[in-house]
């Protein structure tokens, strides 16, 4: 039994298919990359997995359980955490309060939540800005806050949606290090990314999507060599 | 049968007027995404303009020519100096602009009360209760005129939005403000113009209502309520929706008054409003697609 898989996911908005038959399987403990050109349906796929909206058809199976169509908060409680491509900080709350709010998904008292939050903040390296209001953080901080908050819900499976976009080279290295650390912790990671360097270095396997459909899957090397992928996506960068 | 027909005619005529009140609101709501809770109060101001002109012997239909530009200016000033500055302000409540319109409505009402006292005023015309009969059904002349002027204004608005550059910019802003900004549209100016237009349209409604109704400072509130019911019924930003919404509300009120009892008149309107929120979110716009 696969740890996590999606089967023939389809999503129509009005008459348009944003996702039209995406299927993949993720093994426990791996870092699984999803690539594809802009508007190919990556984020829509994430939104269906995390319950922002239900798929038009298809299945999402997590640890043997069909979770498609469930509400976001329920899926979070099952152990699937996510970050948003367009960051959504809880602006008028401090970093610590942001993470504390997330920690309540696992514990009930404010003391425990604080503890979890502080630990997670340390783990993710946000301790120096713990008391800063989230809206006052620079973009790198906000991206990192997204991850920290998701980690505070103690996910078993973490969905990262372009967490490296807009980062400078140093920040990028830090991000790679953090994601490795998260995986090292036993968390499975699915990652959407545009920055090829990052996804090629990090991913154990990569799944390529184009026009809402799966086109290729394999190790970074295999995918990079796949002619369809090169044509559809990498062509522009690598040709 | 006579009662039913008379009720339908009454509802239809009143609905025309409601539509005109609603068009201004729907424009504002569509473009700015806010409910203008001072909408009825703006109409009230226009009615006082009609009243003052009437005491000088000006017919309410001619006072349109004064009231509409005046209210246009009032709308422009409000948008420019009171509402647009709020966009930049960081606050907890996203509804700050709506709350601001509540304050504006209070100020308009009280300033008018200050000048004119709470007394009822009315516009006297020779034709206020003129009627003609078609097969035993009575048609009030001013309301019939108002109905056709409302239709004319809607048609004009429709043409303006579809055919002119400014109209297209307004529609673009209503659809996606950020995209419109990127396309080089000065959205700040568009919101100002839209508020002015909305105010001018409701001013027209006020002048048309003046001969058949009466005027007092607290008149605004109930009409604001009607305007937002119409807007929700019709769908935000849809002029055709506003006409349909206005007529639906007028008809529902009349039918409710006849067949349930007049005291249910307002409840019927509100019940329809809630029903649309629940079962047809997006209003008639969803059905008509314009």
């Amino acid at each position: 039994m696969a740890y996590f898989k999606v089967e023939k996911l389809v999503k129509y908005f009005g008459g348009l298919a944003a996702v039209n038959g995406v299927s993949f399987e993720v093994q426990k403990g791996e870092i699984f990359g999803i690539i594809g050109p802009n508007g190919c349906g990556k984020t829509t796929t994430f939104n269906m997995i995390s319950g922002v909206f239900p798929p038009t058809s298809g299945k999402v199976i997590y640890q043997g359980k069909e979770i498609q169509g469930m509400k976001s908060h329920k899926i979070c409680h099952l152990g699937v955490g996510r970050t948003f491509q367009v960051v959504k900080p809880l602006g008028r709350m401090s970093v610590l309060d942001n993470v504390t709010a997330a920690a309540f998904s696992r514990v009930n008292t404010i003391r425990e939540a604080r503890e979890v939050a502080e630990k997670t903040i340390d783990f993710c390296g946000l301790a120096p800005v713990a008391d800063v209001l989230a809206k006052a953080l620079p973009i790198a901080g906000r991206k990192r806050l997204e991850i920290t908050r998701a980690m505070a819900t103690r996910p078993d499976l973490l969905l990262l949606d372009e967490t490296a976009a807009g980062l400078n080279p140093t920040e990028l290295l830090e991000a790679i290090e953090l994601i490795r650390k998260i995986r090292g912790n036993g968390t499975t990671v699915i990652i959407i990314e545009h920055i090829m360097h990052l996804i090629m270095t990090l991913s154990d396997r990569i799944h390529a999507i184009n026009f809402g459909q799966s086109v290729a899957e394999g190790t970074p090397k295999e995918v990079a060599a796949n002619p369809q992928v090169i044509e559809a996506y990498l062509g522009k960068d690598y040709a | 049968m006579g009662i039913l027909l008379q009720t339908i005619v009454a509802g239809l005529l009143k609905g025309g007027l409601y539509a005109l009140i609603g068009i201004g609101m729907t424009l504002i709501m569509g473009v700015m995404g806010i409910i203008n809770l001072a909408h009825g109060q703006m109409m009230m101001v226009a009615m006082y303009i009609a009243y003052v002109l009437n005491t000088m012997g000006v017919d309410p239909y001619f006072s349109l020519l004064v009231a509409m530009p005046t209210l246009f200016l009032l709308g422009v000033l409000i948008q420019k100096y009171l509402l647009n500055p709020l966009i930049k302000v960081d606050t907890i409540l996203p509804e700050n602009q709506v709350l601001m319109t509540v304050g504006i409505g209070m100020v308009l009402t009280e300033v008018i009360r200050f000048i004119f006292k709470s007394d009822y005023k009315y516009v006297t015309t020779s034709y206020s209760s003129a009627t003609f009969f078609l097969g035993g059904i009575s048609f009030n002349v001013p309301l019939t005129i108002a109905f056709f002027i409302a239709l004319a204004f809607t048609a004009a608005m429709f043409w303006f939005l579809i055919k002119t550059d400014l109209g297209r910019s307004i529609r673009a802003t209503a659809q996606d403000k950020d995209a419109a900004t990127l396309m080089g549209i000065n959205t700040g100016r568009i919101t100002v113009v839209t508020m002015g237009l909305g105010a001018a349209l409701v001013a027209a409604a006020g002048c048309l209502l003046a001969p058949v109704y009466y005027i007092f400072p607290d008149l605004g509130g109930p009409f604001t309520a009607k305007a937002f019911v119409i807007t929700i019924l019709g769908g935000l930003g849809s002029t055709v929706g506003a006409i349909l919404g206005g007529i639906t509300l007028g008809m529902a009120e009349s039918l409710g008054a006849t067949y349930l009892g007049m005291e249910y008149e307002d409840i019927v309107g509100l019940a329809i409003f809630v029903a649309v929120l629940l079962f047809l979110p997006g209003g008639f716009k969803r059905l008509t697609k314009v």
Partner: protein
Amino acid sequence: MKKTPVAAIVAVAALALLPLVLADNYFLHLLILFLIWVIIGSSWNIMAGYTGQVSFGHAAFFGTGAYTAGLFVMHGGFSAWWGMAFGGVAAMLLGLPFGAICFPLRGAYFALASLALNLILMHLATIAERFTGGMQGIMIMPTFVSKVPYYYITLGMAVATLVVVQSIIRSKWGYYFVSIREDQDAAESLGIDTNRYKNVSLAVSAFFTGTAGALYMNYMGFIDPHVVFSLHDYSVMAILVAIVGGVGTIYGPAVGAFIMVGLQELFRSGFFGLFKYLGDRTGSETFTQAMEVVQHAHVLVFGILVVVVILFLPNGIVGDWGKIRKSVFRSKPAA
């Protein structure tokens, strides 16, 4: 989030001792009104200021509470004090299905739906003459002649409301409420059942508002649909109290209540008789005329206050206190 400030405890102690010093009925009445507004303002605030769900129809809950108390008297001749036990519950029972239906509507739609609920209840209470007494209202003889018992009951309720609101805000619920206000999608992704917690917030808010309504019935001794379901006097006033004081702050509504009740009475009474006094002293007509102007101006002043506060103090007096201090007390060293 800090501990209860000493100033708040001092303020409550001072209010508790006040009747011993100042047994004047008129001031006690104003203080009771102030405290009722503390309750309503704080209730509105927990839902709108903390959870971000703006209600334009809080009079619906206030009126429901008041009518619960009134109907106990009207049908069966119970004491209106039963309303204190059930008024809040009744308001909650009204709020929950309403919330369940309307919370999925985002943004201004919810605000509009609450406005509609308010108006519908007002009309229904007017029409259902047999059940509610219609516009003839419900009248009872107040239990106590003295204001002092009412004062302490209201003070107790207001303090209780503030304490409950404060402890909710500092608990898991509080974190959830504010998360929902700040970003609903993010909140969902963090495992927060946003609809459920919006309803929790609504229930708390409706409960305290309803209890305030029941208290009003007992204290005022008279209600009718246009009084307790008044859009202007309760729904809008609740918003004003909170935004003037500061939405999303614990003490904002209390400060707002003080200012709004104070201003209203200040203007209604012509600056507490100052104009009349001056007029009598000088025998000048000007003061009498000025008083009339002032008396007619109170709603105008409210309106201007709203406009000014939203433009310049968008977070209210408490929320923007730092800003006020900077501009008003600039020369003084920071306190």
